[in-house]
C-alpha cells in the first residue's frame, strides 16, 4: 500500500522535525498526518463489519488520551509516558492474540489452513515483546508515580530466573513454528508478562528514565514485529524508528549517567543504590546538566547574567567565556556580567581577566547595579563562583559568610552552576543551597572545558 509508505515517510519527517526546535511543531503535525493516513487507509481498504464499534472505541480512547494529556501536570510527564507505553504494549498483545484467533482476517493463513510458520514467529515475538512492554511499563509507571516504592526490589536468584524465563520464551516461540497449539501461544504471553515484571522490579528510581526509554524501544520493536505479520510498511518503518529511537535514547542516557549500556540491556542494572549526588556532605538531590542543555536554554533566553568567580580565573576561562557571550549576543540574547566585590582572590580580580578577554566595560556591572535584575533574568550562569552567590550569607547567622552581600541568583528562572565537583567548596568552605534548587543545573567540569563545549553546542 503506497499510503502506508507515505505514512511511514511522514513519521520519519516527524522525527526529523525534532532536529531543531524551530521545526519541531511542524514535525509533530507530520506525525499526526501520518497516523491519520494509516488509520484511514486501513479502514478504507478493509471490509469494515463494525464501523460504529470502531468509531466508538476510537472516540472513547481518544477522549481519555486527550483529556489526560491536557490535564496532567508537567512534572507528572515521566509516569504518563510510562503509562502510555504500557498501552502500546497491551495493544500489541491484543492484536497478536486477535491475529492468532482470526488469522484469515490478517491474510496469514497458509495453503495448509495453518498460520504460516514465519508469521507464527513474528506473532510470537510480537506478543512477547508487547507483553514485556506492558508489564514493564506498568511497574515503571507505579514506581514513577510513587504508587510503589522506588527502591530496587532484589529477588534472590533473579538472574537465573530471568535467564530461564527468557530462554523458555524463545524456546517456545521456536517450537511454535512446528506446533500451532494455543497453549504455546498463551504460555509465551504469560511468561512475557512475567519477565517484563521481573526485569523492571529490581531497578531503582534513578535508573527509571533509562528503563522508560528502553520500554519505548521495545514498544517499537513490538509494532515492527506486528508489521511483519501484517506485511504493513507503515508499521515496519515506524517500529524501526521507534525502536532505534528508544535504543539510542537509552544509550545517551546511560552515557550521561556513566553506566554501561550493555549492563542496562542485560537487565543487570539498578543493583547499585540510586544516588545521583557525589561527595556533598548531605545527600540532597541535585540535577546535572550538559553543555547542550546550557547552550539550548541560553539560546532561548532573553537575558543571561554571567557571574564569574575564582574558578573562572583558575581555569583561565575568560577568553572562551567572552566567546560564549559573543555567540549568544549574536543570537540576540542580552548578556551581562555581574561582578561581586570580592569575587576572586584579589580586589578587581575579575576585572583584570575580563578586560584581558576584551569584555566591553559596559557589559560589566557591580553588585548593587545588577542584583535586582536577576529576578527578570532567564538564566544566571555562575562560573567558578561560589561564596558570592551563597544565600546562606543572607539567611544563616551561623555561617562564616553571614552578612556579606550576595547575588540573588536564586531569583533567576534557570541557574547554571559551573564547577568541577559537588565536593569542592569556595574560599569560605561552606556548602551552597543554590546547588540543590529546583531551577539549578550543575555543569560539573573545568570551567574552560565547559565553556568550550557550550560554544560548540551553540554553533551546533
Amino acid at each position: 500500500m503506497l499510503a502506508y509508505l507515505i505514512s511511514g515517510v511522514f513519521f520519519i519527517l516527524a522525527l526529523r522535525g525534532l532536529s531543531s526546535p524551530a521545526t519541531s511543531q511542524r514535525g509533530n503535525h507530520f506525525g499526526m498526518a501520518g497516523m491519520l493516513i494509516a488509520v484511514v487507509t486501513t479502514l478504507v481498504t478493509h471490509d469494515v463489519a463494525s464501523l460504529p464499534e470502531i468509531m466508538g472505541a476510537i472516540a472513547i480512547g481518544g477522549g481519555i488520551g486527550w483529556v489526560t494529556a491536557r490535564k496532567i501536570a508537567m512534572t507528572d510527564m515521566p509516569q504518563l509516558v510510562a503509562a502510555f507505553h504500557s498501552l502500546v504494549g497491551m495493544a500489541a498483545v491484543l492484536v497478536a492474540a486477535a491475529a492468532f484467533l482470526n488469522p484469515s482476517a490478517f491474510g496469514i493463513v497458509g495453503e495448509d489452513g495453518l498460520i504460516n510458520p514465519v508469521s507464527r514467529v513474528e506473532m510470537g515475538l510480537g506478543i512477547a515483546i508487547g507483553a514485556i512492554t506492558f508489564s514493564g511499563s506498568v511497574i515503571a509507571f507505579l514506581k514513577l508515580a510513587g504508587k510503589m516504592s522506588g527502591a530496587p526490589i532484589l529477588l534472590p536468584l533473579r538472574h537465573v530466573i530471568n535467564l530461564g524465563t527468557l530462554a523458555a520464551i524463545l524456546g517456545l516461540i521456536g517450537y511454535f513454528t512446528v506446533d500451532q497449539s494455543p497453549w504455546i501461544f498463551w504460555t509465551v504471553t504469560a511468561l512475557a508478562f512475567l519477565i517484563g515484571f521481573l526485569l523492571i522490579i529490581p531497578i531503582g528510581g534513578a535508573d527509571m528514565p533509562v528503563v522508560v526509554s528502553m520500554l519505548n524501544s521495545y514498544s517499537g520493536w513490538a509494532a515492527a514485529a506486528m508489521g511483519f505479520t501484517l506485511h504493513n510498511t507503515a508499521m515496519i518503518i515506524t517500529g524501526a524508528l521507534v525502536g532505534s529511537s528508544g535504543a539510542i535514547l537509552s544509550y545517551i542516557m546511560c552515557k550521561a549517567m556513566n553506566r554501561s549500556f550493555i549492563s542496562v540491556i542485560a537487565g543487570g542494572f539498578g543493583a547499585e543504590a540510586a544516588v545521583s549526588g557525589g561527595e556533598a556532605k548531605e545527600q540532597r538531590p541535585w540535577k546535572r546538566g550538559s553543555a547542550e542543555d546550557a547552550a539550548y536554554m541560553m539560546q532561548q533566553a532573553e537575558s543571561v547574567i554571567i557571574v564569574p568567580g575564582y574558578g573562572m580565573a583558575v581555569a583561565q576561562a575568560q577568553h572562551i567565556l567572552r566567546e560564549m557571550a559573543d555567540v549568544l549576543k549574536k543570537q540576540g540574547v542580552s548578556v551581562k556580567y555581574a561582578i561581586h566585590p570580592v569575587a576572586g582572590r584579589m580586589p578587581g580580580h575579575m576585572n583584570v581577566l575580563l578586560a584581558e578577554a576584551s569584555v566591553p566595560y559596559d557589559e560589566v556591572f557591580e553588585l548593587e547595579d545588577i542584583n535586582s535584575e536577576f529576578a527578570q533574568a532567564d538564566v544566571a550562569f555562575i562560573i567558578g563562583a561560589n561564596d558570592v552567590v551563597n544565600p546562606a550569607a543572607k539567611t544563616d547567622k551561623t555561617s562564616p559568610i553571614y552578612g556579606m552581600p550576595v547575588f540573588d541568583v536564586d531569583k533567576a528562572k534557570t541557574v547554571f552552576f559551573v564547577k568541577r565537583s559537588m565536593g569542592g567548596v569556595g574560599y569560605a568552605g561552606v556548602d551552597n543551597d543554590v546547588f540543590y534548587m529546583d531551577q539549578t543545573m550543575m555543569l560539573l567540569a573545568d570551567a574552560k572545558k565547559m565553556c568550550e563545549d557550550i560554544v560548540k553546542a551553540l554553533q551546533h
Partner: protein
Amino acid sequence: MDFISILSIFVMACFVGYYVVWSVTPALHTPLMAVTNAISSVIIVGALIAAAAGGSPTAKWLGLIAVALASVNIFGGFAVTARMLAMYKKKER
C-alpha cells in the same frame, strides 16, 4: 510482499531511524520520547484489521479494545508532545 522485501524495508528503516534520531537536538529528547510513543501506536492498524474483520467475535472484541488503547496513546501522545513543544517556542525577536 515477501519476507525479504519486508526485511529490507525494516533494515533500511533502522538506518533511517539511527540517523534521524542522532540528529535530534539533545534539548528535544523528551519530546522525542513522547512523539515516538505516539507514533508507535500505528499498531492501531493491526487493531483495526482485527476489529473490522468478521469471523471470530473474540478477535473482534480484542481488536476493539486494542483500538481503544491505541487511541488513548495516539491522542494523548500527540497532545502531550504538542504541549512540550509549546514550551520550546522560539522566543520572539
